[in-house]
């Protein structure tokens, strides 16, 4: 799929959470938060994962860092020689050496930092854990990391409550960089921030990537942010990837009706170009009780009988472009928007 060497390969990942009821905790069903997701992230590549709340994109990220043990599937991490290990099935105790390769930046800059630890302790903890350095050397390294994310090293003995949301996000980034990881999972890193601060963080992430060649898995619900950050994007809907393509292609020639609807729902920042999206009907399907056939068909304007019965597969419809739709490439999405007049 990509020219770069693969770094992480997710194969048929499934994460089903049991629904327990009653006194004995009987399992009465499963929430299929992630249902058969496959995705490859190349060395130094920035891949976006977009979707609306509840689509399972955060669950994917949490499976990769093994906050959850996936129900099925493989998460293959490749080393420099191209040899791979499967993180999905690995016991917790064996994960330690691989954890340092994959770090995470969280959405909420408040809950992701322990308020009872100073910056020195927060940013220094990963290096303590791996016994990389200690004492004066540790302080120097923390100072360097703080500086490289735009914070003042003198503030090392402050606690997180002394910082604003954007600054806390920088602290989280410094912590993620401490182990010099290969892959950084950015889970909605700017959606909790003020508009004027979002650009700072996005630019910082881009510069760090350019300088150190990290790979990012960039998770977001905001398509314009993904467009700014990513080379390739995967769109998720109710636990499944419905479309993947290079960013420009995905936005200019979407093939899945959901991607097209998502694209048209974003307001354009231009008051002369007013358009009214024809909104999607109804609500996102319940992942505990998915509809038969294509999961998107109840909301799809283009749904045919076939869509109600036969679940579509993710097929390569053009070069490096995959879509999970029976009619990929055949649909005309222009009727998803209508121009509006300025009143």
């Amino acid at each position: 799929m990509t020219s770069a060497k693969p770094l992480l390969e997710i194969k048929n990942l499934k994460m089903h959470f049991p629904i327990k009821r009653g006194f004995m905790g009987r399992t009465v069903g499963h929430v299929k938060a992630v249902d058969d997701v496959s995705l490859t992230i190349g060395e130094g590549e920035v891949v976006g994962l977009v979707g609306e709340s509840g689509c399972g994109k955060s669950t994917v990220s949490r499976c990769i860092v093994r906050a959850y043990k996936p129900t099925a599937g493989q998460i293959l991490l490749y080393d420099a020689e191209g040899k791979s290990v499967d993180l999905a099935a690995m016991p917790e105790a064996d994960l330690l050496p691989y954890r340092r390769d994959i770090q995470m930046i969280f959405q909420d800059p408040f809950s992701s930092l322990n308020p009872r630890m100073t910056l020195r302790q927060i940013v220094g903890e990963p290096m303590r854990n791996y016994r990389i350095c200690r004492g004066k050397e540790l302080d120097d390294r923390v100072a360097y990391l703080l500086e490289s994310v735009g914070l003042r090293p003198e503030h090392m003995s402050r606690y997180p409550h002394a910082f604003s949301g954007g600054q806390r996000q920088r602290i989280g980034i410094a912590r993620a960089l401490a182990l010099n990881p290969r892959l950084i999972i950015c889970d909605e890193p700017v959606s909790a921030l003020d508009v004027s601060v979002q650009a700072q963080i996005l630019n910082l992430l881009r510069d760090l990537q350019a300088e150190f060649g990290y790979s990012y898995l960039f998770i977001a619900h905001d398509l314009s942010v993904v467009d700014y950050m990513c080379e390739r994007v995967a769109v998720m809907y109710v636990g499944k990837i419905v479309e993947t393509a290079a960013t420009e292609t995905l936005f200019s020639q979407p093939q899945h009706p959901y991607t097209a609807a998502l694209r048209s729902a974003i307001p354009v920042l231009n008051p002369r170009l007013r358009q009214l999206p024809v909104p999607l009907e109804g609500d996102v399907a319940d992942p505990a009780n998915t509809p038969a056939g294509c999961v998107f068909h109840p909301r799809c304007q283009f749904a045919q009988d076939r869509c109600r019965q036969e679940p579509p597969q993710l097929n390569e419809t053009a070069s490096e472009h995959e879509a999970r739709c029976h009619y990929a490439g055949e649909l005309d999405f222009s009727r998803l928007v209508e121009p509006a007049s300025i009143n």
Partner: protein
Amino acid sequence: MREHRSEPIADGALTKVEERQLTASQWQLIWWRFRRHRAAMISLAVLILFYFIAAFAGFFAPRDPTRIDAQFAQAPPQPLVFYDEAGWHFPPIVYGYVGERDPKTLRKFYRVSADDRQQIRFFVKGDPYTLFGLIESDIHLIGLDDPTQPLFLVGTDLLGRDMLSRIIYGGQISLTVGLIGVFLSLILGILLGSVSGYYGGWIDVVIQRLIEVLRSIPTIPLWLTLSAALPRDLTQLQMYFGITVILSFIGWTEVARVVRGKFMSLRNEDFVLAARTIGTPRFRIIYRHMVPSFISHLIAALTLALPIMILSETALSFLGLGLRPPTISWGTLLDGTQNLTAIAITPWLLIPVMPIIFTVLAFNFVGDGLRDAADPYA
């Protein structure tokens, strides 16, 4: 390339106080918040005073609490006199007793008489005592020139022992029995609660059912049964520990529940997940990230639980099932007030309820203050 990164933290003109805020640890923040709670601060001062007096009971008590002065059994309190017809007195004086006999019942009783004046002095020699089992002394805060003369500021009991001294010594037991009980609850609760919350599964089920069973037994009968089960021939010290264990027997269940709940919610906190992704060992996650997040809440909750323990000790001892004389506690002191005629004739025997009330109120206020201050990051 780099200039945009240097986003100086806009702290402009920060005062010293604010600078201190930014580097303040959890406990400092809690303390600063707590300080603003006036009732709690006053109560804290009261409690510190009580514990201080109890610690140096020998010095503060005018007499040996076990010294029997049969001559002055059931003597009423002697008021401190600062002013009388002779003018101002400082240090104050007390009037001596005159023994009289009721012509009808022939019962002997005492009256204070202005004819016999006794000057109170500070730091006088009196009954010998030992502080902390180490330092021997016979200096008392207050006393009379002549130690054989009566000085019973809150009267005497049936045997003629000084009530004030007995109340002061009683505090030693009553004020600590709750503390030790709470401490035991805390240890047991955190241990079982964290095991239950962190591991889950069948261990959790067993511990939760145990807690439910323990909590469904009515407290007073349970305590009665347990204390009745304690052998009669225990020493005072063994009895004391026996009672603390009994008191914490129920207390830990509440702590364990809170701890378990906190563990379950903290397990899903982002910063705990973050700690895992940076390879923090499991044990360190528990004691460095999880426990500090709720320990302040727990301490606040336990401060509110302390008065219950103190009251329970009092109740058990009052019923004769807790500590027993000659052990002196506020509960055993109230033992003598079980019959109504005793209260009618010697109402001052009820005075030990005063320190109980003050202590319980003070702990409640301190607990309230702590609870409000417990989460400085809310």
